[in-house]
């Protein structure tokens, strides 16, 4: 096979993610999806603070860094100002499902015509691996040192259950732990971008993504953890796929 670097990937700046992180893979599939659809001159991105913010250096798209947790609603504002652009918000699970859950839900309620790609590694990454809403039951983190106890720490948040009954355009969960899953992630992104072009409304793709640093595993073990554990609690699939506008 012949691998080339997508032209929307920026090799001149440095995105300092840890080895084995899923963020870079997600950026790569975003740029591949965009290029395959021929949309490079229509994209605007909105980054969260923390690990996701390095996406600004990885991709050449014009971009704004929102406040932590406000990525989705800031992206909605940007879309209102630039209705012809295709706007992609890239928060993490801590941002989109904890501090920003209100905006995630209400952007879905308003069916804002944007694509939200949540890089879900079940922890707060940049601050050192604290428990996030998507931390799995029993999973050890810096703030659940004996494993997440749902009686004490609350239930794990599965966004597909929270948004599953809403009248939005697209809701899917993908992963980037294997080449086959990464390819499915790209297909989901392409589908969602097409929906945004059709004006169908809110699309959210929850992408299970490795964080070997905070999971305290090797890169290979992290990929296996997604397969054996994370995706058992947070199953992959398409949950809403509303089809074209009437």
């Amino acid at each position, binding site marked *: 096979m012949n691998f080339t670097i997508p032209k929307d990937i920026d090799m001149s700046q440095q995105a300092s993610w840890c080895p084995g992180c899923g963020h870079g893979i997600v950026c790569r599939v975003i740029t591949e999806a965009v290029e395959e659809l021929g949309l490079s001159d229509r994209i605007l991105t909105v980054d969260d603070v923390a690990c996701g913010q390095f996406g600004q250096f990885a991709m050449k798209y*014009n*971009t704004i860094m929102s406040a932590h947790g406000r990525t989705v609603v800031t992206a909605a*504002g*940007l879309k209102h100002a630039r209705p012809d*652009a295709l706007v992609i918000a890239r928060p993490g699970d801590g941002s989109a499902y904890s501090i920003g859950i*209100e905006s995630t839900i209400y952007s879905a309620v308003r069916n804002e015509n944007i694509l939200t790609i949540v890089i879900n590694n079940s922890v707060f990454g940049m601050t050192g691996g604290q428990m996030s809403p998507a931390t799995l039951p029993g999973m050890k983190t810096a703030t659940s040192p004996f494993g997440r106890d749902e009686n004490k720490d609350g239930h794990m948040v599965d966004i597909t259950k929270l948004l599953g009954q809403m009248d939005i355009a697209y809701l899917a969960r993908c992963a980037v732990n294997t080449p086959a899953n990464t390819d499915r992630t790209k297909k989901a992104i392409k589908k969602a971008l097409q929906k945004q072009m059709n004006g169908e409304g809110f699309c959210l793709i929850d992408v299970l993504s490795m964080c070997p640093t905070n999971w305290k595993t090797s890169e290979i073990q992290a990929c296996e953890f997604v397969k054996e554990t994370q995706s058992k609690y947070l199953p992959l699939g398409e949950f809403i796929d509303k089809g074209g506008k009437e």
Partner: protein
Amino acid sequence: MAKVLMKGNEALAESCLRAGCRFFSGYPITPQTEILEYLCWRMDEVGGDCVQTESELAGINMLMGAAAGGARALTTTAGPGFSLKQEGISYLCGSDLPAVIVDVQRIGCALGDIFMGQGDYWQLTRGGGHGDYRTIVLAPATVQESVDLASIAFDLAEKYRHPVLIATDATIGQMIEPVELPEMKEHDPDKYDWALRPRREGEPQRAIWNRYWDWEDGGHKYPEYILKKYGEMEETEQRWESVLTEDAEIVMVAYGTSARVAKSAIMKARKEGIKLGLIRPITLWPFPKKAFDELGDQVKAFLDIERNILGQMKDDVILTDGNRHPVEFYGEYWDNISEVKILEKVKEMLKKY
């Protein structure tokens, strides 16, 4: 254009539209809600977007996205809601983004109450969010002035790439006065080269983020840039009205609704031969130091007048005067500022000083 009768909040909203504002995001809160209600139908007529958000926090952060996209963007709130706006104001300042934020002030901390008040001076002028920043704060005293200041607020915001605050209050927001509205203007979102639109092949990337990271030396020259920016605002943007200060022995300092009462107190005082004057700050920040520089040696003392308990603006009067004169405070919480009480206070001060 002929004068029309309009409620303060609605006139301000209309003036923003006429300045080319085509994006609003906000949340209902008294005594500001008429702005949201008005824009919910009026924005449609002019082809803009008005979004009732889930909170004030969402309102300001959605506005940030629209401002980044080059739109003239507005959010409005009051009292408790203004606290929630602070995160976004700090981010707008750190990202060099223009926007207009209106605080229709009410009374008290916590819930306080929905009544007339000037409860937010410190938060407006000190930077209620994190980090060190300043914002121009425009404080109208009439419905017409709300219209006039709203119409220049967007220009000022873009001139400095910085948010501009408008501080009205419940009285000015709720009362109806005759106003002359400006002509309708359209704003081009591509007017400035910092505004985000999709990148075209071959163009450098536009990234809006913490601006100090943009300095090639790692941000060490950023403080210089910020000091220059705020210095220029302080030098060129001071706005005020001085009333009979040429011979005044007691100079009142009051803004917004309080200044209206202070003005009428001057007329009564003068009939009694009392030399009373007024400095009315129109910009709360930058505080109109130049108005104080113009005062003569006959001034005996200052009287700060506000609708709150602690006399928040008194700090700035003392700082500006440099402890050369006594500065006293007359404030009301539940009641209107009273001409009679102003005169009593002034007579008492003239005996003392």
